[in-house]
């Protein structure tokens, strides 16, 4: 790609910039029109920046480290099942975390978070890992068969 191309914006970018910029201004207007205090406004922006930093500085590095750990430590036959199990389990825990912590207890409304989440969240995780475990066993047996066949090619 030439430098000239690199400098020249595509029309679709300018279109996105125009419409997207307008929508962003509308968002700011909604916030200002609601007349929150300056502290509240700053608090909201600070929260967004903090979430950004938390994502870039903690969440993604942790995911990357766990991913690399699985790739390096876990046997090849277990690698894909492990990845599938972890990728599906993470959002389940994320969604189940507030109910698990019982954050609605302070509301005095027993119809919020009404289940025994210390049972239901592990149940959901178990329902994910059960088929993953079966899949891992199938892969392990296939791997073992291939190794056996490789060891005795004449057979």
């Amino acid at each position, binding site marked *: 790609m030439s430098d000239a191309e*690199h*400098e020249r*914006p*595509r029309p679709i*970018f*300018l279109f*996105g*910039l125009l*419409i*997207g910029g307008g929508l*962003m*201004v*509308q*968002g*700011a207007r909604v916030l200002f029109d*609601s007349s*929150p205090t300056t*502290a*509240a*406004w700053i*608090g*909201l922006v600070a*929260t*967004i*920046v903090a*979430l*950004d930093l938390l*994502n870039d500085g903690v*969440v*993604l590095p942790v*995911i*990357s480290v766990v*991913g690399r750990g699985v*790739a390096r430590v876990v046997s*090849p*036959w277990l*690698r*894909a099942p492990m990845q*599938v199990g972890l*990728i*599906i389990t993470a*959002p*389940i825990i*994320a*969604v*189940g975390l*507030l*109910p698990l912590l019982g*954050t*609605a207890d302070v*509301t*005095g*409304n027993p*119809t*919020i978070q*009404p*289940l025994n*989440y210390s049972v239901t*969240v592990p149940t*959901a995780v178990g329902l994910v890992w059960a088929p993953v475990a079966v899949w891992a066993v199938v892969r392990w047996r296939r791997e073992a068969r291939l190794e056996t066949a490789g060891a005795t090619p004449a057979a």
Partner: protein
Amino acid sequence: MIAARLPAAGHPLRTERVAAVLGIALGISMTICFATGILSHLIQEPPSWFVWGPRPAGLYRFTQGLHVATGLAMIPIVVAKLWTVYPMLFVWPPVQTVLQAVERLALLPLIGGSIFLLVSGLGNINIWRPWSVDFRTAHHAVAWVTVGSLLIHMGAKAGTTLNALRRPTTSVEPSDTASDEQISVASAVPADGGLGRRGFLATVAGAAGAVTLFTVGQTYAPLRSIAFLAPRRPDMGPQGFPVNRTARAVGLTNVDPATYRLEVTGRGLSTPVSFTLAEMEAMEQRTATLPIACVEGWSTEQTWTGVPLRALLDAAGVQEMSEVNVVSLQRSRRLQQSVVNRDQVDDLDTLLALRVNGETLAPDHGYPVRLMGPNRPGVLQTKWLGRIEVS
């Protein structure tokens, strides 16, 4: 092309093609969330040009259920997308042109806003709101900003996305020295026992599906028994369904039926007209099976019995009206009143409900009288009614 390309990060799943597919999934999901969210906002605070009719009765139930379900399903997709493009954060120099700087600057509100929308939405459905700004205002404002920055991002990445999707999916094992071309077409098939591109994308879709499966029972009855993560169960609560605000929370646990009066005031009425509970019970009753659909995404259908609002206004002598405002006995201002437009008033299933499923309303469900109309958000189904203002 003005945007930087995904560098050769050395990871077989961090490809432009994976980023493109996840980006498209996110674009669709965010559009659904944005459209349904703005609709919900318009219904709750209608401008003069917007009229929300009473039919079909379950439309709001569907749109708001879709809003929350899509938002929850987006969680793994957002994280997967951000993980895929994470190496872009460390590209040096970070920008080479002014336009590229604009595109990258838009990533801050896009990423921060997306995460805020998911976290605040997740908090809200659990009635966990640690924000100093009102949830609805913050969620609404940040949604505009986020979708705006998404459009800028999409405009910048449109060429990259299309190119990544057009390339053939040959199995080329990437390495740190591979070219961009090689990186972007790599890993359709796993080579190290781990997930390949298709497996990874399928797993992310599976994660979104699992989250949906374990939560959507809060609005979709057939999956109720496996709603393991849902913060509400539509079959749990007084009289068999949940409440958002209890009678205790608003100090209305002991409304005396003997002294209770529902007052009608306003346009065309020189003096207020009031009805006792006995008078309302003596009026012709109407029964309707209507959904109660909460903005937090749970919903349920119950059979309500009471006096049609239209009939009560007729009995009060109201000749003309454009809308009515129903006001609760509660003193706290939050959810104290709601507007019922002309179309909704004229729908005979818009009830001043006295009973649910044949039983007198429980205090938590708004005893002695609550509004229950078709196709209205739960927050507008005002409970513990004390006054109707005609305008």
